[in-house]
């Protein structure tokens, strides 16, 4: 079946394409353009996350509660998508979760410290979308953001939206 590196190459090229396209219309990229690119990538990730979670959970029983869903995302879902489990899950038990992955697969090829820290956001947008899409199809609307202090470790913050 499709090799892991193929996805990584495709993802790199997608990020590059989205940013180049936005830039070609003007000379410089301002923050608004960057935000547009990030949201385009996030939206793509959203659709992929929705599809993936459907495939993954079609035969499993329903989840007991929100925490159960988050644990599933941290273990099974993360393993299937990013080939490892989340290293640390923290929550305030009021709808906010922080998922920490110390060796995030889409960042390992970029650097091993502080180099390219400012570029990391581009490479996390798609993954944030994947998580948001997965949660959405499990019945949880959320806002997912990611931050990186030291590559390749990153923290995904998930805030569940209460209706």
């Amino acid at each position, binding site marked *: *079946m*499709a*090799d*892991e*590196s*193929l*996805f990584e*190459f*495709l*993802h*790199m*090229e*997608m990020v*590059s*394409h989205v940013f180049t*396209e936005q830039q070609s219309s003007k000379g410089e990229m301002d923050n608004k353009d960057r935000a547009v690119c990030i949201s*385009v990538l996030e*939206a*793509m*990730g959203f*659709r*992929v996350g929705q*599809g*993936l979670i459907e*495939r*993954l959970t079609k035969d499993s029983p329903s989840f007991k509660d929100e925490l159960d869903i988050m644990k599933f995302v941290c273990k099974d879902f993360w*393993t*299937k*998508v990013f*080939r490892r489990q989340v290293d640390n899950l923290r929550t305030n038990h009021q709808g906010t979760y922080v998922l920490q992955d110390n060796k995030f697969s889409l960042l390992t090829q970029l650097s091993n410290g502080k180099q390219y820290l400012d570029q990391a956001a581009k490479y996390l947008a*798609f993954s944030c979308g994947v998580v948001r899409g997965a949660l959405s199809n499990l019945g949880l609307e959320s806002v997912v953001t990611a931050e990186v202090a030291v590559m390749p470790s990153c923290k995904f913050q998930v805030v569940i939206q209460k209706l």
Partner: protein
Amino acid sequence: MSRQSNRTTDSKKMNSELFTLTYGALVTQLCKDYENDEEVNKQLDKMGYNIGVRLIEDFLARSTIGRCQDFRETADVIAKVAFKMYLGITPSVTNWSPAGDEFSLILENNPLADFVELPDNHNTLIYSNLLCGVLRGALEMVQMAVDVKFAQDTLRGDNVTEIRMKFIKRIEENLPAGEE
């Protein structure tokens, strides 16, 4: 324990689904961004080219294949090693031209197009055109200029997916002036 073994076979399949779904999201986005299919085809080819020029390094590092002696050997390596390694399928190599510079790769099933149907208003879209760019880019890095096209596509109603590859010329390595 049985869950464990499920996971290994599942994880390979899942990677394929991740790639297939991501590719689908990409094509959808490109269709939104560009007005016509021709432009989307071109963008897919360009992106494929950019991937191909990097993929070849990954391939050469992992496959320990040496230099191919001729185009026939290249065709075999592409079908039996490269496609197998990256997409898990082995297309067949057929339809050689009399001059030996053109051949077809026949794919029984195309992992990029799993779960995909083309809507009616996109019948000139070459959905898997990324593959053409990848092949073109990868071969250019090993000094071969080739032309790669889809001759048949199951998404457009054909029985099989056929990629036609034509050897154009050998690319001479250009040494910077003053060397050798």
